[in-house]
C-alpha cells in the first residue's frame, strides 16, 4: 500500500487554536478532519502538506440543528450523521438521495461534510446538492467569520474561497415552504464517483403549477460553481410541464462542459445532464406536491 510523505502534526481543541496554528504554518498546513479525502491524496503523494492540524478534538462542530428558518450543519458532521438525520431528510430529500450514494457505509462514518466540501473534488456530490439548495458556508478566519454562498464557494477543481489561514465551520440551508428536492447519480458502479449527477430543488407557487424558484446543481460535468444557472433562469416563473422540465434539461446540457475520461465520453455525459436534470426536476416537483417520493 502506498504511504504518505513525512509530515508534522498538531492537534487543535478549539477553532481559535486551529486558526492560530493555520496562521503559524500557512501555506503548508492542512486541516485534518475525517481524513478520508486528504489521507488518500497524501498516500498517493498528490498532496504533501507540511503540517496537519487535527481538528477532531474540537467539540461543538459536529451537529445538524434546525433553527426557525435554517438547517445548520457543523463542518465536522459526518456523512453518516447527515444520512441519519431525520430533520435533514424531511426538509431536504436531496441530501439523503445524495448521501445514500456517496462512497460506502464505513467511509460515511468518518468522512466529514466540511472535509468533502473543502476537498472540492469536481465530482463531489454534496457540492452540487448544497448549490441546488442555495445554502451558504460560514468561514472563520483571523478577522472573524464571513458567509459565502454555496454557489460561490468552489472556484475551480480542488479550489475553494477558504484562504490558507481560514477554516470552514458551518453550512446553512434555508428552510422554505412548498419545496421539494431530489438527486440522481449515474456511476460505473455503486459507490464510484459520478460519471454525471444532477440535483434539483424547486419551490412552487401557491397553486403548485408554476416554478417560483429553483436550484439545479450538476456534478462532474464542468458546471461553473456546480450550478446550471441558465436552466434555473429559464425555469423561474414557468409552468410545470413535462416540456418545460425537459427543456430545462436541454439548456443545462448545452451549458455544461464535460470532458471525456475513463468514466465516460463527453457526449454521453452531456446526455446524462439532459436526462438526469429532467428526472430530478420531475421528482422534486412530485415531492413538492406531496406526492410519492
Amino acid at each position, binding site marked *: *500500500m*502506498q*504511504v*504518505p*510523505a*513525512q*509530515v*508534522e*502534526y498538531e492537534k487543535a481543541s478549539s477553532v481559535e487554536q486551529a486558526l492560530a496554528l493555520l496562521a503559524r504554518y500557512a501555506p503548508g498546513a492542512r486541516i*485534518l478532519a475525517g*481524513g*478520508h479525502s486528504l*489521507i*488518500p491524496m*497524501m*498516500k*498517493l503523494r498528490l498532496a504533501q502538506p507540511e503540517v*496537519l492540524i*487535527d481538528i*477532531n478534538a474540537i467539540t461543538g462542530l459536529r451537529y445538524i440543528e434546525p433553527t426557525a428558518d435554517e438547517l445548520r450543519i457543523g463542518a465536522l458532521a459526518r456523512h453518516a450523521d447527515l444520512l441519519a438525520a431525520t430533520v435533514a431528510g424531511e426538509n431536504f430529500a436531496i441530501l439523503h438521495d445524495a448521501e445514500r450514494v456517496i*462512497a*460506502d*457505509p*464505513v*467511509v460515511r*462514518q*468518518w468522512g466529514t461534510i466540511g472535509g468533502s466540501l473543502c476537498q472540492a473534488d469536481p465530482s463531489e456530490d454534496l457540492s452540487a446538492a448544497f448549490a441546488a439548495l442555495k445554502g451558504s458556508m460560514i468561514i472563520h478566519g483571523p478577522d472573524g467569520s464571513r458567509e459565502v454562498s454555496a454557489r460561490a464557494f468552489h472556484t475551480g477543481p480542488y479550489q475553494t474561497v477558504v484562504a490558507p489561514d481560514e477554516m470552514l465551520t458551518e453550512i446553512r440551508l434555508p428552510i422554505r415552504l412548498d419545496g421539494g428536492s431530489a438527486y440522481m447519480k449515474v456511476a460505473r458502479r*455503486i*459507490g464510484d464517483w459520478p460519471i454525471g449527477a444532477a440535483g434539483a430543488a424547486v419551490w412552487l407557487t401557491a397553486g403548485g403549477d408554476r416554478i417560483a424558484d429553483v436550484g439545479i446543481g450538476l456534478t462532474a460535468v464542468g458546471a461553473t460553481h456546480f450550478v446550471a444557472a441558465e436552466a434555473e433562469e429559464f425555469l423561474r416563473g414557468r409552468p410545470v410541464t413535462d416540456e418545460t422540465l425537459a427543456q430545462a434539461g436541454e439548456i443545462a446540457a448545452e451549458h455544461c462542459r464535460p470532458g471525456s475520461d475513463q468514466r465516460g465520453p463527453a457526449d454521453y455525459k452531456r446526455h446524462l445532464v439532459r436526462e438526469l436534470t429532467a428526472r430530478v426536476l420531475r421528482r422534486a416537483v412530485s415531492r413538492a406536491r406531496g406526492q410519492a417520493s
Partner: protein
Amino acid sequence: MKITVTVNGTDYARVVEPRLLLIHFLRDELRLTGSHWGCDTSNCGACVVWLDETPVKSCTVLAVMADGRRITTIEGLPRNGALDPVQEAFAACHGLQCGFCTPGMIMTARWLLDQNPDPSPEEIREAISGQVCRCTGYENIVRSVRWAAKHDGRAGDRAGGDGA
C-alpha cells in the same frame, strides 16, 4: 510523536511518525496481523477495524489520530476465549475462502448486528458494500451474517457502545 492507544483492551504507548497509517501501526508495530490491506485508495476494506466502536478503514486514518482512543481488531472479538457468533457463522456458512477479506467483513458484520440485530439480506449487502471479496461472490457472506443474527447471544452486550 508519543501516542497511547488501547487495542483490544490493552494499553500501548509508542513513539510513531505522524504519517504512520493506523493499519501499519497495528500490523507492524503491535504485530496484530489479523487486519489486512489490499489497495491504495480506501476501496477494498480489508483493513476495517473499530475505532471507538465505529468501523473504520484503518488505512485511511493515521495512528496519531487514534491517540487516547480505543481500537478493536479481529483478535479482540472473542470473549473469554469464545468466538463471537459472527466468527462461528463465517465458518458454518462457508463465508470465506482465502480468508484475506474476512477480518474486515467480520468486524463490519459484528457492528451491523450491534446496530440492527435482524438485518435483511439487502441491509447486509449495503453494510458490506464498501468492502471487496474476490473469492465468495458475497452470497455466503450474506448467509453467514443471517446465521449470526439467528444465533447471536451478544447483541446489545458490548460495553461502552455509545457510538461516538
